[in-house]
């Protein structure tokens, strides 16, 4: 195979893959404007499914829950995670095998085992103490648990990439550890913190299984609502909700593209 034909084949595969990746999403978006209740034929443009969404309190509260869950859990995970990340860096010459295992555990544990463990445990704790009733609180706890490792690893790798001499300089410059943290460390790891926050946020929004098993009566998130709607079989409205979520993702994607263009990393 010549260089050129290889190139052409690869380009072909690339576009086919893109089609594969975006076709299902495009179909969801397209059929959200379908006049008929059908997944097979598009009979005409209509906004009727969006009209049905308007003022649907359940969807609004599911959206609010998704946002509260993602933001609060990401903030908490960011706080806890960057301490671990720093600790891991500062003490990287010690034997920290147990810590590494602990940090990788939430990453490698299958979602379903993760979710069910927490559900069973929370139910038991609730029965014994009255705390940890299933709801947003338990969901936040669960999400923080799977976000911490990612934050820690990102922050850790940022510290590793720094010149150790910088730390010495900072030590001379600022007397107290608090000032050092505030004026030196926070600014230097800011890019890492931002990307850790966005990753945590994405992980939270993307999660379904763990949320599903730790949720309570009032804490349904958008994915849980959509899951319920799929199980109930009302298809066109789900198309509309899903399309709104896709639009949000598209906006974020474009924004991140512009952001990274302006400041090449």
């Amino acid at each position, binding site marked *: 195979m010549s260089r050129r034909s290889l190139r052409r084949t690869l380009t072909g595969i*690339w576009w086919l893959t*893109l089609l594969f990746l975006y076709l299902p999403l495009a179909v969801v978006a397209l059929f959200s404007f379908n006049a008929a209740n059908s997944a097979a034929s598009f009979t005409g443009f209509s906004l009727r499914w969006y009209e049905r969404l308007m003022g649907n309190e359940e969807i609004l509260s599911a959206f609010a829950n998704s946002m509260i869950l993602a933001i609060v859990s990401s903030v908490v995970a960011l706080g806890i995670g960057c*301490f671990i990340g720093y600790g891991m860096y500062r003490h990287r010459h010690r034997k920290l095998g147990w810590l590494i295992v602990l940090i*990788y555990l939430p990453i490698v544990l299958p*979602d379903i085992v993760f979710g069910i463990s927490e559900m069973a445990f929370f139910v038991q704790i609730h029965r014994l103490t009255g705390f940890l009733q299933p709801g947003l609180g338990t969901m936040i706890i669960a999400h923080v648990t799977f976000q911490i490792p990612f934050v820690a690893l990102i922050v850790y790798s940022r510290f590793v990439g720094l010149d150790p001499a910088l730390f010495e300089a900072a030590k001379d410059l600022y007397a107290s550890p608090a000032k050092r943290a505030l004026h030196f460390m926070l600014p230097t790891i800011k890019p890492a913190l931002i990307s850790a926050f966005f990753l945590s946020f994405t992980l939270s929004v993307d999660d*379904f*299984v763990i949320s599903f098993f730790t949720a309570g009566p009032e804490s349904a998130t958008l994915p849980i609502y959509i899951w319920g709607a799929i199980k109930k079989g009302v298809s066109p409205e789900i198309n509309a909700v*899903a399309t709104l979520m896709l639009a949000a993702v598209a906006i974020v994607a474009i924004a991140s593209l512009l952001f990274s263009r302006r400041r090449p990393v």
Partner: protein
Amino acid sequence: MVRESRHLLMTVAPGASWIVFFLVLPSAYLMSVAFMSSGTYGLPEMPLSLESFRRLAGFGFLGWSPGNLYTLLRSLWQTLVATGLVVAIAYPIAYHISTCRARWRPIMLLAVVVPSWTNQVIRTFGWMNLLAPGTPLSSVAEALGLVAPNMGLYPSNFAVTLGLVYNFLPFMVLPLYAAFEKLDTAQVEAAQDLYASPLRAFRHAVFPQTLPGLLAGIVLVAIPAFGMYVIPELLGGGKGMMLGNLVANQFAGSANWPLGAAGAILMLIATFIGLFAMRRIGKRLGGGEEVVI
């Protein structure tokens, strides 16, 4: 030294204890449930018993039945096929991206990753729409005699495989791309001079260099695919049950917590065996270099 230890404790303790309290303890509790007996309505009860493992192996008071074994084999098979397909697609794609102009690469990577920013449930729902009976894809499949008349491509085991490939493709492209980007071109050129056929050049110069990325990708794809719950539930239509569904059903449907917990243990064992095997393979093939996941 004492100060250093205190420092370590202060930075690491909050997070470590969070994970211990909210993940290690819960998992340990779930493990212990597997060794309890199941009450009439499926909740764990004393005394301790190995009954749930017997049930998991297929022994009930109806004698042995192969259902759970089928489920396990189906999970393994689906994982194997899906991972294989993901590698087959991701490998050329990652290579292709790495050979494009530098300013296009971030955009191309983003294009691959963006679909995974949407929720898993929505992504899977898209395929439900696309593969339902009467849709163009299903009609073509029907005309070719691939599916029974009036049936769609969904629900089926094929739809589950497709859903898995779709869901996990980005997880393979990213680490492979990272490997291709670091590719030592001098080595590749030397190999091209050395070996007559491009295939051999690839095998000796390119492939070993991308192996760490490939292994990382396999770990990222195979482990969650093996424990998948959402995709078989939505696309399998009752025929494509996987281990994740077997476990979840014991908590969300026909209740039997100890049996579900035993299933979870089986899943964990399989996961850790997989991780361990990948590490060993990575170490041997990568010339002692450790593969970081």
